[in-house]
């Protein structure tokens, strides 16, 4: 989707795109500062902030003690008092220690105070599984946060979004949570030299198609595109939607697509029960019931703590083959034509 006249694209990785976004944010606004465990001297647990301490100094790139509640709360307080903090929580797995501050303070203060104070804070977290780091480091809990009014929740799946979402999030007067899937950091790809801020209120159609709609986000977008390729070889033309924003959900794009294709498969690395996929499913039934030609299918992580063993972890997670089966399942005989 690059326009014809874009500046020459160059090779880069998702990780470097995140770093470029952080550097540009720190350079362009004095109020911005980065805070989190090992973001400074160590360069970030996923090396996203390598070199930033040397460039911006310890005041604006602050290593913190292992006190998620305290430093996330401090980020909230600083945002309330005029700063634009970027707080990095190493992974969503550790964010549960700060969920009280995020839910009871960050998301709630504006409304509960009768509109007197906002929290313009950005929190970045790694998420998802696939590195055999076992259950306590492999959760995908985006839906915990997408459930909370007062927050915006984003899932950059592409290098362009990794580069562009942070700037827009920092402009937002309310707390924004950015989920970066751990498997994406090393992914290579092209990025326009002048790539910058991108809108954060719309889903994107990564592949147009007419027979079925596959809805995915973050780490499952690539798997859905792979599945769509396999389906194409079997004569099934699947559309792939990248949600990009998990709260608020872009109902219009979802419903418009499903109304065209009449079939929907939702791919979500969260556990099936009470998942984001369940919410998307409910909205499709509420808004496109009469256009459905088959029950909506979901491909989610098996309801199990993510196991260490490689073969078990792969069996637990959504995979292209499962997505292909789910799409064919919605096609009935046409699918096996």
């Amino acid at each position, binding site marked *: 989707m690059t326009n014809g006249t874009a500046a020459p694209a160059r090779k880069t990785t998702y990780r470097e795109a995140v770093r470029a976004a952080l550097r540009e944010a720190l350079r362009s606004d004095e109020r911005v500062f980065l805070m989190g465990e090992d973001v400074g001297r160590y360069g970030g647990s996923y090396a996203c902030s390598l070199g930033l301490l040397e460039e911006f100094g310890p005041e604006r790139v602050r290593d913190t003690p292992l006190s998620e509640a305290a430093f996330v709360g401090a980020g909230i307080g600083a945002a309330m008092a005029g700063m634009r903090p970027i707080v990095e929580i190493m992974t969503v797995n550790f964010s549960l220690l700060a969920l009280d501050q995020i839910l009871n303070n960050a998301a709630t203060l504006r409304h509960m105070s009768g509109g007197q104070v906002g929290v313009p804070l950005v929190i970045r977290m790694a998420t998802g599984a696939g590195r055999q780091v076992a259950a306590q480091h492999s959760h995908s809990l985006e839906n915990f946060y997408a459930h909370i009014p007062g927050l915006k929740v984003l899932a950059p799946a592409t290098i362009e979004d990794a580069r562009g979402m942070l700037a827009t999030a920092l402009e937002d007067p309310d707390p924004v949570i950015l989920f970066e899937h751990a498997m994406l950091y090393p992914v290579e790809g092209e990025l326009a030299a002048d790539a910058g801020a991108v809108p954060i209120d719309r889903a994107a159609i990564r592949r147009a198609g007419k027979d079925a709609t596959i809805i995915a986000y973050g780490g499952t977008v690539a798997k859905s595109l792979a599945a769509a390729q396999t389906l194409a070889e079997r004569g099934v033309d699947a559309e792939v939607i990248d949600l990009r924003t998990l709260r608020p959900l872009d109902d219009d794009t979802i419903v418009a697509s499903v109304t065209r294709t*009449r079939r929907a498969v939702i791919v979500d690395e969260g556990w099936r029960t009470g998942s984001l996929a369940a919410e998307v499913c409910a909205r499709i039934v509420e808004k496109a019931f*009469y256009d459905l*030609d*088959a*029950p909506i299918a979901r491909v989610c992580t098996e309801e199990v703590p993510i196991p260490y063993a490689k073969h078990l972890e792969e069996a637990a997670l959504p995979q292209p083959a499962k997505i292909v089966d789910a799409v064919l399942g919605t096609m009935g005989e*046409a699918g096996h034509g």
Partner: protein
Amino acid sequence: MPSLGADMDAGTLVEWHVGPGTVVKRGDVVALVETDKGIVEVEIWESGTIDAVLVAPGTKVPVGTVLATTRADGAPTPATAAPPAVLNPPVSPAAPHAEVRASPAAKQLAREQGIDVTKLHGTGPHDTVTRADVERAVGATATGAPATSPEHERMQAPPPPAAAAERPSGIDTAGMRRAIAAAMARSKREIPHYYLSADIDLAATIAWLEGDNARRPVTERILLAALLLKATASAIREVPEINGHFVDGVFRPSSAAHLGVAISLRQGGLIAPAIHDVQDKSVAEVQIALRDLVARTRVGRLRSSEMSDPTLTVTNLGDQGVESVFGVIYPPQVALVGFGRVVERPWASGGMLGVRPIVTATLSADHRVSDGHRGGVFLAAVNRLLQRPEEL
């Protein structure tokens, strides 16, 4: 009874520390009350003298009940009424539709196209009927354009009873059944029917028709039904009291012959939309109007005016092998004309015995408006007109 906690609705008066005549001042503990969490001291917020104690120890009362009144200061112990909790009556779930294994999109299109999904072969998951299956059945050349067209007219049951509540663009056969039943019952109740029949020799009519059709391209070929309709319209001029509406005790004759034509839907159900002003149409024009009306009825594309204002209905069910038809009048109309199947029968004419194509014409009519004699005159007129088809 003070509210002593966020979740407290009632409390039990345990013990009074005061009685009538006791002098109290603001903040004094006057009683003990038991709540779910235990016994709590209750203060009085008004200084004064206790007048009367209204609740005996051991009684449980809702928050806000007045426990005692005081004198001198006059103000009774403050009472607050706890708003009664109003429970919404549970909503009974809608009666489930008959179970048909078809997708919502399929059912929606089927309703719009008047297709019975239960008769279709399902190619969807678990052999359910899909929208594509219905599209094939409609035979519409699905070019991706949705089958329902925006200017789609709403279908109504023939007489103007309350139409079945259904999605505006679909024919709800169940709803239609209910509407027809209601109209028939009302017709039987309110309209004193009388019935007449007459056999008509169609030899001349059919001979003229075949000759005329031989000269026409097949697409302009005329059906006998068109002639029967034209004859009926012309006969009305001689007996106007069978063409019009009986409303609020008054018969209003109609100058125009808007003939309702009873058309059966292919999978059950009967609708009688009108061909307007048959009296002004040639037989060929009646044929064109009839063909168009039948086609549009079968796909549910009728105008509301075609539904609401037939002045006389003609049922040509003879087409299906029944020889004589005594139908029930559709209120507020005042008559119903029926034509049975054309049958080869022995027939005497001019003393000669021969075999002729015979049709039985019948009339059901409203005795409040016309009588058997006038009905007979009408049928005789129809017969006479059919003998000279070229003049119709």
